[in-house]
């Protein structure tokens, strides 16, 4: 059996008041310092060109989708989130997606699709929010994925800059 001998408290300690005041002093000091917390839904997260959000499809200036449904992103996707069905179009490119679904619940935002794309048609946007009332609503179809090129330009420029770093002199 162990007998714990407690410390004898002084009067100031017995009153608790000095300690309460000390604690409150911290509270009052912090009230006047700059805030570090963020009011998240009202105040959006900071986004930079490096932000790798959800993948989005590029729509060129002529209102035509850049995707030709080659299926390389589908093949590269490690989470099997992408499903594509191709079809014929009258445009010179001949082929365009008739169905392009990304299951956002499956998507792990890895960016392999962006890397695989030979037509610069899919980019990781800076959109990160993902919430809905059903799972079905989070399988995004082609209309939900389309973005004008201008909206993705920041990321496109970033990817192009990074890609240049890896290019050998002969391949330019």
């Amino acid at each position, binding site marked *: 059996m162990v007998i714990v001998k407690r410390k004898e408290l002084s009067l100031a300690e017995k009153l608790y008041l000095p300690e309460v005041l000390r604690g409150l002093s911290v509270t009052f000091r912090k009230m006047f310092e700059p805030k570090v917390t963020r009011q998240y839904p009202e105040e959006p997260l900071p986004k930079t060109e490096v932000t790798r959000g959800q993948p989005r499809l590029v729509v060129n200036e002529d209102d035509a989708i850049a995707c030709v*449904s080659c299926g390389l992103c589908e*093949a590269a996707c490690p989470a099997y989130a992408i499903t594509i069905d191709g079809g*014929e179009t009258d445009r010179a490119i001949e*082929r365009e997606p008739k169905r392009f679904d990304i299951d956002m619940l499956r998507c792990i935002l890895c960016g392999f699709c962006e890397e695989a794309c030979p*037509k610069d048609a899919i980019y990781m946007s800076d959109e990160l929010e993902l919430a809905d009332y059903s799972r079905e609503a989070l399988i995004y179809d082609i209309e939900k994925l389309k973005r004008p090129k201008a909206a993705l330009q920041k990321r496109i420029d970033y990817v192009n800059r990074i890609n240049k770093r890896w290019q050998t002199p002969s391949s330019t």
Partner: protein
Amino acid sequence: MVKITVNGRVVDADPTKPLIKACHDNDVDVPMYCYHPGLSPVGSCRICQVEVKQGEAPGRVVVACRTQPAEGMVVDTESPKAHATRRECLEFLLKNHPLDCPICDKAGECDLQDFTYEEGQAQGRSHEPRRPLEKRKSLGEVIVLDEERCILCSRCVRFFEEVPKKAQLTVSDLGSRSVISTFMDRPLSGNYQGNIADLCPVGALTLKKFRFQARVWNLVKMASTCVECSRGCSIQVETLRGSDVKRFRPRPNEQVNGWWMCDHGRFAFDHANAAGRLEGARMLEGTQLVQTPIEEALCAVRDALMGSKGGLVVLSPFCTVEEGRALRELAQRHQAEIAYVSPPPSALKDELLHTGDPCPNRRGLEELGIRGEAGETLTARLAAAKVGLIAGERVVELLGPERVRELPGTLALFAFECHPVASRALRAEVGIANHVERTGTVVNVDGIRGPLAAAKPAPRGVRALERHLQDLARLSPRRETAVR
């Protein structure tokens, strides 16, 4: 047979066949575009060049498809000299080949793509623009030609000259302006056009029906047999995401179809993909057909067959040997008569492959002792019978839907069909799997057995006929003779 050395290995080679065949037979990979084992060699693409030494002379680079093996030949397919020559040829072939693999249907099964990848030539040295040609040239009902992609191997030209023996394509114009075209720009005709899309080593000739339908690496391929005529061509069933059959393609089989198949069989997948399937089982209650458990419907079939002497079992000629045998046993067990529907020959008969007989397993059923009768005779016999059982894919279609509808109410008709049966006599119907959803064997006109493969799952609640018949046998009391 002569003895030659291929990459340091002594092998037997047939001197009447080109050297490339000896290489391929011995698992030595030699690239090829213009050579095809089913066509005569021309040596126009020059990609199959290998180094050959004979006697004391220094090694020479020759095209393997136009060289005949000779005794003592020493072949090296991987020598630096051979590689360098092949790479140069490849560079010329790629000179005008557009970089449109992302939209090309051949990507993934393209010989040019594979070999370019193998050789690792990532960058071209050419500065001139590629020649612009027509990208979407229709060659009739089946084929669309992309002139830019064509490498002028002339396989398609030789195919029409040598296999259906009716030349329809030619290389027109000269030099760098050469293109494949039909005579006088007439559309292609005949029942064998689809083969040139398989033959084409690049994506120049593609099928209109398969155009942009699927990426080939997403297709699940199963070896099966065509059921459109009694030739029973060996085919490959290719399905996308376990649901739709996207194409049938011939599988090389020298005994039956060589490398080819007819367009009639090639495009017969609409039937395999047809919607409105009969799922589970339905039984007549009052005047309405209602969904019932399969077991109950099978019991009804058993009870009806047991209660009557002299029922009639009618098979579809699409039934496999296994199904035929099970149905014959069922008929014997209940002293019922058995016959299969034998539709009249079609007008598609030709000298090459199509036999004109639409029954894929006629020989297999005949070997089981089941006789074929015309649809009219069989419906007449059914109308006179008390109990009738019709079983198999498309059996109603072959009996005549009108005649089946008008069968009298005195007959108790039971059906195993893929699609709902409309008949006044119908008592119960059970859904069965079609020819791309079940396994089995069919025997072709020459007695060669071909397998059916389950390339895709059957719809929910649908099982193969064989499974239903097994259950039916389990439910039926055994014959007394079998008990001993």
